[in-house]
């Protein structure tokens, strides 16, 4: 009887320990970002900064001027250009981390192919009290643009910091063949 009892207790404690181990949140999740999500129509605000996406454009060819020379960039997929307005709450901060979660769930970071374009937001500093407008440029396959979420943070892989997720409206997307990015935006 006693042996049966101790075997039963061992099995129960093993089950409890296995359950504890399986449900322990991993370190990466404990120190992960503090996420705020919202829709495109709203201003999505975290504790450090807020963002509003004004327009989303799908573009075949991007054109801009660099040192007086025209730069033209094409993609095997499509360019997706977001114009957005950022506001810092308390202190000056950059918003360098911008990722689009595509329809398949894959993560597309801002394209470095277009980081010399003017008015790119990740190259700017956001000062509190001064709304900062600019663009984020992504390159992704056409089918990934069917469902998109823009994720913004101070830098990539934020830890215990704001991360804003903005779900994008499909019917607001403008398709264009060619987009010239000027000094003052689009």
């Amino acid at each position, binding site marked *: 009887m006693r042996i049966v009892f101790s075997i039963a207790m061992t099995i129960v404690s093993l089950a409890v320990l296995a359950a504890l181990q399986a449900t322990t949140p*991993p370190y990466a999740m404990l120190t992960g970002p503090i996420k705020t999500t919202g829709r495109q129509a709203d201003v999505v605000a975290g504790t450090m900064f807020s963002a509003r996406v004004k327009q989303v454009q799908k573009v075949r060819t991007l054109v801009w001027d660099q040192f007086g020379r025209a730069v033209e960039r094409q993609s*095997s*997929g499509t360019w997706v250009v977001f114009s957005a307005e950022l506001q810092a709450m308390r202190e000056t901060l950059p918003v360098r981390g911008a990722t689009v979660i595509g329809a398949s769930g894959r*993560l*597309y970071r801002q394209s*470095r*192919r277009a980081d010399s374009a003017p008015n790119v937001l990740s190259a700017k500093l956001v000062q509190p009290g001064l709304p900062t407008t600019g663009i984020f440029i992504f390159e*992704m*396959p056409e089918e990934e643009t069917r469902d998109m979420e823009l994720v913004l943070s101070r830098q990539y892989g934020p830890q215990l910091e704001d991360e804003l997720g903005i779900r994008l409206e499909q019917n607001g997307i403008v398709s264009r063949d060619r987009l010239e990015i000027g000094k003052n935006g689009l």
Partner: protein
Amino acid sequence: MLKAISRKANKALLAKVLAGIGGFIAAAISLGYSLYEKRQADIIPQVAAAAPIEAGRWKVSLNAGAIGSELPNGSRVSSGKQAIVIDMTLENLSAESSNIYRDLVRLQGIPNPPMPQYYLVRDKDVLWDMQPMMPEAVKAVWQVPADLKLPDVLKVKVDGAQFKPRDNLYAAPGWFSSGSVAQVALPLAKTPVVTEIKP
């Protein structure tokens, strides 16, 4: 009394012998397994040029090799150097934009090979992130000393990476090296050497 003692001694001896046999079996299994692993690791499949190679995180096909003195972005290599240029098609199979392709292709038979610089053929510019599901034609450039004698057929190894949903340290998802997955014998074409124009 004496009998009991001798039985006890026999029992102790038996236990020792059994433990010894167990130890030997463990050592033999471990040795056999490590020999087997070593042999398995030595067998790297030979892949033809231009055939796609699945390397976990990347899908790559090595299309052609060349020796030249000009970089894909149009500039000249630094003096005293020559460039080994490999044309490839590269695709990011992971779920995230990534620029960790530097260790993907390793040249064999070249002492202290430098880190390659990748160029995007579409832009004739330095390659940064590769986006998932967007294969691109790229060129990788290794700058080696000009007096280094290069073989006609260059041997190249492709290193794989393997995804772990929970790594051992942070229980975070990540990609980890999984050894060479393929080797390719790539003929090196010689492009005409541009004579240097001194200003």
